[in-house]
């Protein structure tokens, strides 16, 4: 597959995703027959009440919580068929996916810059090139001056922006964000959302963002709503 062909592919496409937690009495159907499609360059919100199955869907697409049934294809490549992995999931994650969560989850013993750089070095980028791109990304996200600080010396908003920089490190085709702004004030929250939009539009990535924040919905190209494990 050439990169042009890849570019035409949807960033993510799922069909019939179902997730059942536990068995027998404790069985919970967290996600039922979810089929969705996000194109490259698109920023899509995923809305829904707590317990609707949003995180379950996101982690299934994120290749860390395989579905009980259904298929996932990312950047045109089939990756999951039910619980069965069709590719090396960890390698696929580091090449094509970027994650952002409610908490920044930065590694506490690495500086802001190192937290971003490690993601690139893991993906076999040379340390020199990685340092260069890290500074560029931190500059793009407006935290270049905090590069050599440890996470505990950064504000919540700064931490989250470093986490976004880390998610963008390897030019992912798809960014998955699970309530990324829940811990931020509305202004900072909006900034982060706009950042996803900017990245998606300028760099051709897609973003699927779980959010409760209805004030920032205008940032998104499209929204999905989820309830009781199903998309509406």
């Amino acid at each position, binding site marked *: 597959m050439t990169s042009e062909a890849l570019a035409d592919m949807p960033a993510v496409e799922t069909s019939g995703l179902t997730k059942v937690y536990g068995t027998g009495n404790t069985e919970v159907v967290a996600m039922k027959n979810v089929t969705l499609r996000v194109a490259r360059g698109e920023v899509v919100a995923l809305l829904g009440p707590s317990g609707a199955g949003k*995180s379950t869907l996101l*982690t299934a697409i*994120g290749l*860390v*919580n395989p579905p009980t049934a259904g298929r996932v294809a990312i950047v045109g490549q089939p990756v999951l068929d039910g619980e069965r992995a069709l590719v090396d999931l*960890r*390698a*696929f*994650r*580091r*090449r094509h*996916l970027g*994650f952002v*969560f409610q908490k920044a*989850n930065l*590694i*506490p*013993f*690495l500086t802001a810059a*190192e937290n971003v*750089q*490690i*993601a690139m*070095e*893991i*993906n076999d980028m040379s*340390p020199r090139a990685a340092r260069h791109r890290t500074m560029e990304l931190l500059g793009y996200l407006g935290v270049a001056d905090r590069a050599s600080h*440890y996470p505990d010396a950064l504000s919540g908003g700064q931490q989250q922006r470093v986490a976004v920089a*880390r998610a963008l490190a390897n030019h992912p085709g798809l960014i998955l964000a*699970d309530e990324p702004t829940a811990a931020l004030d509305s202004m900072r929250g909006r900034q982060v959302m706009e950042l996803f939009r900017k990245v998606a539009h300028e760099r051709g990535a897609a973003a699927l963002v779980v959010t409760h924040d209805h004030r920032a919905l205008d940032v998104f190209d499209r929204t999905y709503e989820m309830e009781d494990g199903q998309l509406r």
Partner: protein
Amino acid sequence: MNLAIRDIRHNFGRFALTTIGIGLLLMIVMGMGGIYRGLIREATLLVDRIGGDFWLVQGGTRGPFAELSRVPATLEDRARAVPGVASARRFVSHTIQREYRGRPLRMVVQGLAWPQDNGDWLPLIAGRPLSQAHCEMIADRSLGLPLGAQLKLGKDVYAVVGLTKGMVGTGGDGSCFFTVSDAMAIQFDQPGEAVRLERQARRARVEARDLGMVQPLLLDRAAGPGAGIPALAAPRVSAVLLTLSPGANAAAVAATCAAWPDVTVYSTQQQLKLLLAGMVDKARRQLGLFRVLLIIISTIIMALIIYTLTLDKIHDIAMLKLIGARNGVIIGLILQQALLMGALGFALAYWLGTFAFPRFPRQVVIEQRDLLVLAGIVVGISVLSSLLGLWKAMRVEPNKVLS
């Protein structure tokens, strides 16, 4: 980017304290091993150093170290007549406890077969060997006697003319070297009154018999020195030490002496075995067992430390896996840190030991071989306990980060 180094740099205080703890623990393990080796070294030191080929001891005994042995001093002359024997020396050894300047002084009195042996084979660190047949001694440094010190033992005063280093008896007490006759004088010294009473008793015994009645001259003899009475035995020594002439048939010499009913022959090797398998055996096993326990306990402690350090990082490991880090990155983080901790702890233990161990009252012998084994154990523990942590780390689900 080396994650282990960065983690250490960021949590330096914790790393340093943990490493110091491991270092102190390893120092104790090292020291226990050294005490164990020291016990063996001290037990065998004299037999090793004195350099004879065969020991003639009292028949049927396992002397002169493991038990008491008495042989006549004239055995020396008999042994010299055996073909293949280059020299025979009397060996006298016993432990005495006296006082010097108000503190107890426990020392092993060793006799040197003057004049063939003046102690020039001793590891002297100051002074000189013996140069006269009486009233001189060579003392071990551990006794704390200065060069030139005067010591009254028995009826004579002895001057310290030489100092040795590390010459101790099987019990760890410092050795003192005298000529054989001085050593025996110290051993058999009796107060004048005891001598007078013994002569009186002897005279009374002779008077009570017919012999004393018909030969009154005998009464005068009985009241004189014991050495002047033919029927009384010559003073006895602990053992006689044989040195073979070059090319002599050792088996033949041993067979000849073994045929004498009043003595038993041991080679130097057998003598060493008697010491280790008999005399210090229980102490050795006691220390050996304790040492094994210490190693097991420190293994568990180190394993726990490294395991908990890994558990502390489980969240970060989950994050690393989520962003796609290979197992090698995670293994490197845990294993490098564990190995570094083990290596630094080991070095610290060794370094502290060089200050602490020489101050112990008995020898602490740190052998290269023991160090290597301990180093191997430390590496093994570091790897094993990291594996334990890794086993946990490899199982951690990346979506743990979400909750």
